[in-house]
């Protein structure tokens, strides 16, 4: 119970900060919307490229990427908050007060997930409002969101681990850059089979490629490689949970 109450307290405080502070809340909603507009609107001509065979159209194709991107960056933003908490000394207060310190990591992860759910709801509403076509069923779409939620948790735990180790806002690029690379070295604009040369090789081994391809298959109503995608996302979440907990121990040792 101590774990749950610590996690609840930390999550409540993080969420309270975000939802009462427009300078934190607005970018969280505006950036995914902007990318969705720029990619789905500006690049819609890409759907005429020979071999592009995504039946639901370019808007749905890009929606999956932007949803996963918002999930990943939502997690990273939570890491920014943790680093800020270290600089202001707030984490030290948490370390002193929390009987179960693992609850601190759990609380930040819950906060990351909750704030992303708000972003995802907003983005979905906009996507449907602009006429996004969806072929998936009542099971396929929740699967897409579950997959993205796992990405959110994994990215949040990654950023949490970095913040716990470096304990400074200067660590923002360290949290952000690898996530940026993983996202953009995946099939962002066209399906994997249309990529050529070195980028195809990189995207092929990039775990996020599995997530994106499966996500797009869900929205098209023709699930493929779902097991692999969930396996990859869950493995990343578990791996980064260990990373974050080891980070917590490092923060404890640093005092």
């Amino acid at each position, binding site marked *: 119970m101590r774990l749950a109450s610590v996690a609840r307290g930390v999550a409540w405080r993080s969420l309270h900060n975000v939802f009462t502070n427009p300078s934190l809340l607005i*970018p969280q909603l*505006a*950036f995914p919307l*902007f*990318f969705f*507009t*720029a990619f789905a*609107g*500006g*690049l*819609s*001509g*890409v*759907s*005429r*490229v*020979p*071999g*592009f065979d995504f039946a639901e159209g370019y808007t749905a194709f890009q929606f999956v990427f932007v949803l996963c991107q918002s999930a990943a960056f939502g997690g990273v933003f939570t890491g920014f908050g943790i680093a800020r908490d270290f600089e202001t000394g707030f984490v030290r207060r948490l370390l002193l007060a929390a009987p179960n310190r693992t609850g601190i990591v759990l609380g930040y992860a819950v906060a990351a997930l909750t704030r992303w759910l708000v972003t995802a709801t907003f983005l979905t509403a906009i996507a449907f409002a602009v006429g996004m076509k969806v072929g998936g069923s009542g099971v396929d779409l929740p699967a897409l969101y579950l997959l993205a939620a796992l990405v959110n948790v994994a990215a949040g735990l990654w950023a949490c681990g970095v913040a716990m180790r470096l304990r400074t806002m200067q660590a923002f*690029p360290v949290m952000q850059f690898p996530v940026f*690379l993983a996202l*953009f*070295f995946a*099939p*962002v*604009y*066209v399906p994997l089979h*249309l*990529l*050529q*040369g*070195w*980028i*195809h090789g*990189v995207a092929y081994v990039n775990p996020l490629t599995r997530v994106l391809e499966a996500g797009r298959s869900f929205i098209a109503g023709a699930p493929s490689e779902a097991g692999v995608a969930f396996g990859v996302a869950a493995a990343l979440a578990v791996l980064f949970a260990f990373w974050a907990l080891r980070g917590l121990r490092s923060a404890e040792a640093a005092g």
Partner: protein
Amino acid sequence: MSDAADQIFVLARRSVVRTSRQPAQWIAPLVFPMLLLAVNSGGLKAVTHLPGFPTDSYVAFALAVPFIQGALFATMNAGTELARDIQTGFLNRLALTPLRGAALLAGHLGGVVALGLVQACFYLAVGLAVGVRPASGVGGVAVLLVFAALIALAFGSLGTWAALRTGSAESVQSLFPVFFVFLFLSSMAIPRNLIQQAWFRDVANANPVSYLLECVRSLIITGWNGEALGLGFGVVAAVGVGALALSARALPQRLAR
């Protein structure tokens, strides 16, 4: 060297020295645009198969983007550095010397232009290394470098004005998303005539950043194109003159001496 030239030179040198001693300040403007170039030229290579696409090399098409991203970094760096000087009181220190306002602006922007040119040379070298051959030849490369310097000057002035008005590095940095929006809602990734969504095409047509991109792009992929050059230089001149005038007006208020 006259006193004024001497003052401009030492301030420009300070600007360059400061940047060179903050690796994040010069690594990011070199690496990020190249990374985005790599990502986009790999991911969007298939777009060159669209009928009417002006070249079969997406790298050549996309090489214009780093030049404009460089301008964003020039804006941010110029603005953030000056705002820091205001916040730390360093500008007051300068204000207590016989330094003239014009020399202060010239020195500050001189450093920004020097760094803009270094960035442009780097982008060009990477382009040449991956096989891009500017269609306008050596003369075109020279014009490209002049254009890059003017972009750094114009957008650096914009950042300078923001810093003088707000006096806060955070406020200047909050402009970054605004410029980012301008960049993405332009003909950055695809030529304007191939944008399918009518509303997006209209936005790109109205967006001055499209003309900056197309000016650079014309020199790289199509050769000498008077219209593209005229529009590009026209936009940069308008931004530059406007921003310099605003900065020159804001400086005395900030110095208040």
